[in-house]
């Protein structure tokens, strides 16, 4: 049971690359990669807000719990 980051699915649906999203949200590609691969230990509200804004989604679309 763990928190799953569904960034890959969202990017695929929106035909957006990770590099493009990194530029839009002002994060480094390395940090966004950490988030995408589920290796992040925490996510800032500011990061969550920026991703949701750029991907036009809700926090629940980005995170899942299995």
């Amino acid at each position, binding site marked *: 049971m763990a928190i799953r980051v569904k960034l890959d699915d969202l990017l695929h649906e929106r035909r957006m690359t990770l590099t493009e999203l990194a530029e839009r949200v002002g*994060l480094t590609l390395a*940090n*966004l990669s*950490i*988030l995408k691969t589920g*290796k*992040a*230990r*925490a*996510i*800032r509200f500011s*990061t969550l807000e920026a991703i949701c804004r750029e991907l036009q989604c809700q926090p629940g679309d980005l995170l899942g719990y299995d």
Partner: protein
Amino acid sequence: MPTATMSAPRRDPLLAAAKIVIVLLIAILIFAMAMVAIGIGAILTVGRAELLAEIAVAEAPVLAYWAILALMLLIESLLFLVLRFLFELRRIVLSVEEGDPFHPANADRLARMGWLALGAWLLTLPASMIGAWLTRLAIAAGEDLRFEAQVGEESLLLILTLFILARVFRHGAAMRDDLEGTV
């Protein structure tokens, strides 16, 4: 335009001074340990007869010979513990200079320093008792010799501080891990 001073790594005068002082103290301790070791060797071999003769002249018990030997062995052990303490401290100072002090290894180092300080404090107890006994013998024999070892409560405070700092660093290291994993 970049200059040599801009590209050079920033030097912290406090850390630089700490490193110099620690290295100097290490050198002094190694020298002192060598001298005490030579002294122990001499007492056990070439100087044994002479020392026993002096003890006899002073009308002191033969036990004084073994007390002097025990005191020197205690001093040697004490110096060794202080040396280990300084090596640990030096590694911590180097990690601060590298900009990574909140590391689990530093928490371990501080805990080890706490144990070393505790060991040194415990060694000071018999050393001070033997020293006081030898001082009484020397005074009784009309010699102006004093063997003093300070057993202060401030040492206990230092030991406690080191163990508490070890916990602080362990907590800090965990917080740093969390921060590093925050996106």
